[in-house]
């Protein structure tokens, strides 16, 4: 018999947290009895309408405000009762990504990142090396000596992200980190977040509405009016379920059918140039694009390009005829594959789904 392994110290543990701004009659409460545990290695996304208390919660966890009522433990350290001054060292273990990049225009990209590294104990050369490595990972390896003025908005935001992550913090707090980023940058950043949760066991708590991040999140916390309204763990099936709800014909399905499709669908990866389906082949699979772009060819002519949340292949599945077009990946593509049997079952259960899918079928035939 082995001894029971004690559960790891949560990266964040919040209990009975209340917070109010102002005093006297002007006082208004923004957080009500919030309780939340986030274990190491979890990528948690915080959503909610503006004014729901997301940012206040983030600043309290980050030690940027003193607590009023309730308890927050960050990386095993109790923040309650700490003065503004005592909160300063707590922040050093946290990677902050702010909405504004706030880089010093007088410093190069590398120096801006090193400002964060110099809070640690590394030597100058170690810090320089670490800064360059981190910038390289974010695709800025050739821009280390550039001042912010010479960088694009997305590049600046990536420097700010490098500054937050360079210390390899065990907790990362971020507020809309990908708002200023293009598709390619976002992919790099999200991959890096995901890798840090896996490799260094870092916990990430992020305010975002970017579905590219939500798709990769382990957990989705929704806040309304200063309270946690829902808190969902996202495994692969439920993530696909969430995704399907946002795709037009599938949104007509009830929860049971969605869940069954999600459970049986498989995620497949295609390299750029790879043929996903070929005209004339028999086909009994529907493809739903999660990431990337494909081109649809008929008689050697491109007739359409499809991207995330769009699907193809339903024509053969419904009619039983051979494929009427060739579909080729133009970039790395992740697509969910839904089998004919599951699709047929869903069409039998939901008239609306059948009708909507038929409309696509008729249009594309």
């Amino acid at each position: 018999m082995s001894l029971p392994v004690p559960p790891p110290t949560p990266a964040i543990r919040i209990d009975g947290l209340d917070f109010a701004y102002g005093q006297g009659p002007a006082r208004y409460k923004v957080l009500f009895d919030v309780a939340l545990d986030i274990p190491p290695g979890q990528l948690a996304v915080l959503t909610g309408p503006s004014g729901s208390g997301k940012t206040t919660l983030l600043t309290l966890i980050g030690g940027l405000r003193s607590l009023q009522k309730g308890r927050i433990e960050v990386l095993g350290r109790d923040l309650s009762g700490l003065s503004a001054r005592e909160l300063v060292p707590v922040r050093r273990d946290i990677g902050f990504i702010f909405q504004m990049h706030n880089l010093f225009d007088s410093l190069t990209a590398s120096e801006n990142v090193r400002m964060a590294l110099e809070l640690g104990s590394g030597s100058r050369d170690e810090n320089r090396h670490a800064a360059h490595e981190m910038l390289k990972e974010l695709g800025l390896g050739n821009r280390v000596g550039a001042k912010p003025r010479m960088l694009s908005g997305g590049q600046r935001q990536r420097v700010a992200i490098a500054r937050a992550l360079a210390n390899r913090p065990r907790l990362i707090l971020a507020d809309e980190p990908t708002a200023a980023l293009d598709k390619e940058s976002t992919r790099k950043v999200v991959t890096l977040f995901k890798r840090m949760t896996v490799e260094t066991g870092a916990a990430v708590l992020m305010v975002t509405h970017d579905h590219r991040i939500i798709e990769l999140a382990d957990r989705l916390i929704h806040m309304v009016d200063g309270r946690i309204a829902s808190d969902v763990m996202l495994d692969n099936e439920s993530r696909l379920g969430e995704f399907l709800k946002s795709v037009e014909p599938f949104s007509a399905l009830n929860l049971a059918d969605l869940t069954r499709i999600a459970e049986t669908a498989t995620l497949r990866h295609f390299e750029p140039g790879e043929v996903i389906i070929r005209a004339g082949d028999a086909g009994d699979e529907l493809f739903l694009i999660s990431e990337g772009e494909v081109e649809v060819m008929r008689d050697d002519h491109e007739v359409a390009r499809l991207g995330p949340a769009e699907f193809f292949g339903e024509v053969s599945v419904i009619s039983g005829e051979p494929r009427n077009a060739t579909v080729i990946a133009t970039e790395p593509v992740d697509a969910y594959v839904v089998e004919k049997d599951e699709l047929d079952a869903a069409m039998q259960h939901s008239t609306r789904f059948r009708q909507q899918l038929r409309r696509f079928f008729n249009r594309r035939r």
Partner: protein
Amino acid sequence: MTALTLPRRGLARLRPARVPLAWRNLVADKWRLARASAGIAFAVLLMLVQLGFEQSFFTASLAAVEQLNGDLVVQNASKYRFGTRNPFAPKDFETIKTVAGIATAAPLYADWVDFFWTSPVDNKPHLVRVFAVDPDAPAVFSIPGIADQQTRLKTDDSVLIDSESRRFLGMNRNVTEAKLNGVSVHVAGKFSLGPDFMSDGTVVMSDRTFAYFFRTTPAAMPIEAAVIRLQPNQNAAEVQKRLTAALPGTLKVFTKAELVQFESNFQAKLSSAAPIFWLGALVGFVVGTLISYQIMYTELSDRMPQYATLKGIGYENGYLAGSVLRQSLLTGIAGYVPAWLLCLAVYRVVGHIALLPLHMTWRVTLLSLALTLGMCLLAGMIALRRVIAADPAEIF
């Protein structure tokens, strides 16, 4: 291999261990730096000129005393400054000569209020300072042009004039005959001493000529000061004691150094000149502090989100304060250096026009540097409150 790695390690030590934020912020914007530098330089120049004037005032006021050519000087104990007429009786001078240990004693006669030099420039009489010496006694002044030409004064009505006197006196001109209190005098030579803030020009004559103006004889003339040289291996303090004992209490015996100190005490503490210059320097200091504050305020306002971010990621107020103050001091130095260089030219031009001994000295350099750094530090500390008050929670 070793030969290659060693110098590299040496160079690495020269590079700063941390990101030099203060320096980077200072030089980030060349135009802003130029404006800041010019603003500070203006205030520094103001202070340098005032301090220079103050110093030249002292130098000029002490010039005559410092050139007295002796070990001990005797003058009336009731004199509050050198440049005022308060002579002692000739019989006391005779007493001085009898005291043991003295090699020579030379009388100095002087007057600051009775002599008018008719200027060849405007043909009008101007008040001048007059020193009279015994041409046969050892030289009273070590001023070049007096010591080596005093025998020329043996001819009656001969004078030596100061070619560095103020220009309106015309003593820099090629004059041989002139008028002093309406009496024709012969200019036997020139020396170079320069005016101070009380006298515009100086005339040196013999005791006989001087006595003539007062309708008396040299033997009966009261003496302004006795300039004494000691025999070799004599202790000045000992002789000073013996002299004090031999002379009546109305006379005071100074060593040369004591006399210079006595005179500079008067100028510094009793005259109104020193406070005027210090007030001028203070105005420069206040103006400089305001300019410096304005510079730092703008600087900090522009970088507020950045400083707040640094606080947000865990920097202490102490680090930020250090960086801001360092930048403020660097701005001060950026203004000081050009002002110091410019001031060399200003001293040269103003000194030439105003006949002031305006020279850049270590004293003025270090004093003005300390004031500059002080005003930048003060301004930095006032501006700093903004950074201390910055709320990192505001930037999320």
